[in-house]
């Protein structure tokens, strides 16, 4: 349940075109993405970077390192992911987990994960601190701060809706 939210959100951030706000995490991701897009004939080198981050404002929720590792992972995708939406989503999800696992957790992330795991545990929902590190490790500090505010004890429904709200 909740543990999947982070990974699925990343898939949504990356998969769907949205507004127009280029960012450093966007650039970090798009460097890798454009290698894939050019190789598979989806976009040309001259327009890809700008289209990539113009179309994906959700990338701003990621840390620069997280977005970069995600982009590196995408650069190696098979071209069949261009036409297979389900494959694209599952591969992106796998990349987000691998990217988070490769990042050294910061004290801020560790403290956030302790609070979040404890908040879910109080609500009889299981999220280990290590799983939390894997799932939230690619997000920016700003997003972690917003998510951290969700862990203040109120009610379990509030916790769930707050986390979902931040990640949407």
């Amino acid at each position, binding site marked *: 349940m909740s543990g999947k939210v982070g990974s699925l959100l990343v898939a949504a951030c990356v998969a769907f075109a949205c507004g127009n706000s280029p960012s450093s995490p966007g650039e970090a991701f798009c460097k890798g993405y454009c290698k894939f897009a050019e190789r598979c004939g989806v976009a040309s080198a001259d327009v890809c970077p700008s289209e990539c981050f113009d179309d994906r404002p959700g990338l701003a929720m990621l840390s620069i390192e997280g977005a970069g590792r995600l982009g590196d992972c995408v650069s190696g995708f098979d071209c069949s992911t261009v036409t297979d939406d389900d494959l694209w989503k599952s591969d992106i999800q796998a990349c987000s987990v691998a990217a988070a696992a490769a990042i050294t957790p910061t004290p801020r992330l560790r403290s956030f994960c302790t609070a979040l*795991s404890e908040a879910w545990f109080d609500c009889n929902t299981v999220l280990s601190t290590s799983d939390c590190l894997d799932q939230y490790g690619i997000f920016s500090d700003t997003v972690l701060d917003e998510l951290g505010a969700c862990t203040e004890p109120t009610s379990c429904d509030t916790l769930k809706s707050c986390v979902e709200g931040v990640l949407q």
Partner: protein
Amino acid sequence: MRRALAKALPFVLVVLAGCGADDKDTAPRYPIPGCESFDTSPCDITTPACQTRLFELAACLHGVEPGDMPPVTLMSENDFRSYLAAEAAAQQPMPNQDRWDAANEVLGLVAPGGLDTATEIDDTVKAVGGFYDDQTKTVHVIDHGADSTPETSCPVLLHEFVHSLQDREVDLTSFRQMHDATYDADLASDAVIEGEAQFQAQRYMASMLGLDPKSVDWARFYAEGIASAEEQIAQAPSPLTATPNSYPYAWGSRYISLGWAATGHSGVLDLFAEPPADTQREMASVVARTDDVAGPPIAAPAAPAQLTFVGDDALGALGAFELLARSEDASAESIVLDWRSDHLWIYAGTNAAELPSTTVVWACDFKTAGSAAGAARLVFGGQTEARAVGSRLVVAGADDGSSVDWAFDALLSP
């Protein structure tokens, strides 16, 4: 009343999707108070080293020396299904089982077809993480494929190890037989068995997950667990089959937790020597264990000559909750805490078409007339009518629609 086919550990099956290699598992792991020397990290339960570590930890949590570890098997879902089918086939049918089934349907406690063995086995296979067989003294952990990870399997194994330690001290088979006279007493005593095993598994789980057991808001944890179990019972098509998989764990673990700090293992042994006689006592124990408030028994009504007495039982406060909760009215929980005594009678008859019919009568005394009236308003579903006079509620019905006024007259007359 009919029980589920095996003991479940539903809580531990609420898990996240698998998350790959745990090379990030360098977060500090907080020890469990009282068992500080034990490593609580998750491990591969198929290895002897992991099993031994968890057994020794279970013994420490329970408060005894470990002694010999019981045999442990990993059972596939298919093997578990076959095991349950064989167990069901070997089970002696209860006398008048069809009448009991019909009575439960009249009350709305079981949906039509809700007691189908194949359905029950399927539900059990999905819900159960493991079980301790007190005949063979063997612990079985169910392999749920990709859903079984060290983080889900370790608490299951520890929970079942606690049962093996309990069995060594109190003989679980005899304990169950001594306290199964009514549905209410059976659930209340099962809450001691499952409650302690679940309580120890929860202490372990907090540490295993990387949390500090001392900083967990346990009161909130139990409140949320019970709220979730109440919802599960209220929404189940057949509350009677859902309850044994939730009540003993959710309410039982809270009940055990309330005395653990003061009395520990000896307090648990006291509960095994004299378990709560009814579920009201466990349900009302929210911040401290409460005293027994059970009132005097309710005398049986005189049934019409054409009806034959089939059997009787007591549903208790939890059974009352099953009858009221489907109204989804928030007051159901507080009303049933005002339970003081109840009794259920089942009768067989023959209707005008000479087909068998079943009549069921349930009388319940509450602390106040207000609670009885509130309960009468909330009894939901089934083929029954509910009336309250003073602090007594009577719910009665027949599966052929026959009048049950005789029961109301007998049980509600001043």
